């Protein structure tokens, strides 16, 4: 028996084509891209080509892509450096209560420095509206950071509308697209996005590499201090093999591939609900139920089912899903996203699991998973 991996919002398996590219680069192209010798030029060539591939994928210019260690560093950079460098223009920042910790902890840090942060609350489906942003906006607002799509519920925010609202405002518009990149069709120009965070390992690329898109019209200082790499916007020798792997992962996601996956994942959601219903297992979907969501993320409330026990049982039966983040002692914490949606006293906060799909998942696996889920829930609730 083999493991069925349904935790793709946490990370994804690397595509074999990506592994091949990385191995090839590691074996044969070790130069420092900043070096002016032959080896440096070879590395630089791959770096430039990779940057071009990635820039094209979001309709950005090559010069607007800054490679970082991943989503967290991109988020930290966008939020903290924007705030610190623009505080003379105002100290107000708008974000949401359902952002990733990389944003929320950065905001908490800025609060200690005297910044005023507005946390927009999501509706019961996990979404933020453009009107909420509009009413929170002031003349002192210097940054609006709102995630493209949520990593726990799949709820998508009206990014292009918010971009439109902000295009004539002094506030920079940052979006954390770590979950959305590779799933959604993103056009940073059309959507008036100033900064955007991504991560390679969510799209079958390697870990510890990502990029921060920074519109050429704006400037923020480097978060990591050191050399002049990435046109002085991110110090440190570029990890060319990982960047080449990232670009390969991006190449694999053609518009057709993207569409096929969106449809397939939406079908998976329907299938799971259908099997639960047929077997009279009570459930509710946390987050959007329509297809205008990040379809690879599916959050289910299973009343009366302890998620810790359920996850352990599923793991022992070789199905990997997620119950949210764990504390450093391994026990599950209440999800801040579900708390923001339903309140901390809601049983949904503790009795929910997240299932997230990836490129290799098949309907057959989903059916097997759903049946196992039904078996375990019946066993636990009888």
């Amino acid at each position, binding site marked *: 028996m083999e493991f069925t991996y349904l935790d793709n919002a946490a990370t994804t398996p690397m595509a074999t084509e990506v592994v091949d590219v990385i191995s090839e680069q590691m074996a044969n192209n070790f130069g420092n891209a900043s070096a002016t010798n032959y080896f440096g030029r070879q590395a630089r060539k791959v770096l430039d080509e990779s940057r071009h591939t990635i820039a094209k994928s979001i309709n950005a210019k090559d010069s607007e892509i800054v490679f970082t260690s991943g989503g967290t560093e991109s988020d930290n950079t966008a939020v903290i450096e924007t705030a610190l460098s623009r505080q003379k223009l105002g100290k107000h920042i708008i974000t949401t209560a359902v952002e990733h910790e990389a944003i929320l902890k950065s905001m908490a840090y800025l609060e200690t420095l005297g910044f005023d942060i507005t946390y927009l609350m999501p509706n019961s489906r996990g979404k933020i509206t453009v009107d909420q942003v509009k009413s929170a906006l002031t003349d002192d607002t210097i940054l609006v950071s709102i995630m493209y799509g949520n990593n726990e519920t799949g709820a998508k925010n009206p990014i292009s509308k918010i971009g439109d609202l902000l295009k004539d405002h002094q506030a920079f518009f940052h979006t954390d697209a770590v979950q959305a990149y590779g799933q959604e069709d993103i056009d940073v120009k059309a959507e008036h996005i100033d900064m955007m965070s991504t991560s390679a390992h969510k799209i079958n690329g390697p870990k510890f590499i990502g990029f921060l898109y920074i519109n050429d019209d704006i400037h923020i200082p480097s978060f990591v201090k050191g050399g002049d790499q990435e046109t002085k916007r991110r110090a440190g020798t570029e990890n060319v093999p990982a960047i080449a792997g990232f670009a390969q992962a991006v190449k694999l996601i053609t518009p057709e591939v993207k569409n096929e996956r969106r449809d397939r994942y939406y079908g998976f959601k329907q299938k799971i609900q259908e099997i639960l219903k047929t077997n009279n297992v009570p459930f509710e979907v946390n987050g959007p139920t329509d297809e205008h969501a990040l379809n690879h993320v599916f959050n289910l409330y299973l009343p009366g089912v302890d998620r*810790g*026990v359920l996850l352990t049982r599923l793991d*022992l039966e070789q199905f990997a899903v997620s119950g949210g983040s*764990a504390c*450093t*002692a*391994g*026990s599950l914490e209440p999800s801040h996203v579900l708390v923001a949606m339903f309140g901390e006293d809601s049983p949904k906060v503790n009795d929910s699991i997240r299932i997230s799909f990836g490129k290799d998942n098949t309907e057959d696996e989903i059916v097997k998973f759903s049946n196992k889920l039904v078996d375990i829930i019946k066993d*636990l609730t009888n």
Partner: protein
Amino acid sequence: MDNKKKRVVVGMSGGVDSSVSALLLKQQGYEVIGVFMKNWDDSDDAGVCTATEDYEDVAKVANKIGIPYYSVNFEKEYWDRVFEYFLDEYRKGRTPNPDVMCNKEVKFKAFLDYAEKLNADYIAMGHYAQSFRDDNGVVHLLRGGDANKDQTYFLSTVQQHQLQKALFPIGGMQKSEVRRIAEEAGLATAKKKDSTGVCFIGERNFRKFLGEFLPAQAGTMMTPDGEVKGKHAGLMYYTIGQRSGLGIGGNGKSNEPWFVVGKDMSKNILYVDQGYDNPRLYADHLEASDLSFITGLDYGDEFHCTAKFRYRQQDTGVTVHVLGDGKVSVDFDNPVRAITPGQEVVFFDGEECLGGATIDAAYMKTKKLQYI
């Protein structure tokens, strides 16, 4: 061996004993699952929980052995069923035994329930105790092989249906042997220091900790003859027979050190007297309640056996009178020092731990000692 088909959920604390338990069970062919129990929210001001280190050791050991590991949170169960009891006993001027209660309510109840939800056939931890199944299928609890480490005192309230599910892989071993096995297997916990004291207090100052939860009421400290010797910091901080912390030196009648020989809760008086062997510290009879027997077998209304009145004490011969309604009275063959209300009296028949009850009052020559 058909152990292969049997699933054992091992409560792993991040210590060497439960690490070796898991290793041995794995070697015996069981399907072993490691589970770290998080029973206490001990996050410091920076939000760092110190259980982290223990959990990381569980992860290292489990990966070394090659078993899956998980974490389960029993903070609420521990608080409601162990800590509330713990505070309550102190409020009454008694000296509770949270380890007994933890085994009874958490390790052999909440944890067993959890393990059963994982379809466990057995549970195990790192207890120094042994068990034996007789021809009738009744499981008996036996003292641990290492007399110095024997933990049957803490297991005396375990019920038959719970013991039926328990395995004690290191129960027959010496501690030194357990450490040797851990070292040979390269387990990260091989040289880890044994935990000391009450688990949730750890290395912290006991008085300070207790004072955070219970208001301490200072009062008078006097001899049984009424001679005032000073102030006490709050009766809950003192245990019968305790020497340290009295804040008074020798002198007096005999120049011997001073000991707590009694308490009067209603008057908030602490009685102290001189000499480790002060006669006021000796009892020849006790009354106890919440009697339970591990096998569930009937031992009759009156029987002779041996008993311990606190952990790691020598056994004393006793005659037990079962009074019904969970109550029991116990006569000692010889007087025993510092019988403490709130602690367990645990009965033994040779190597077998029969069960126990919670001490309510101590007597000397039919006179009740003023211990609470």
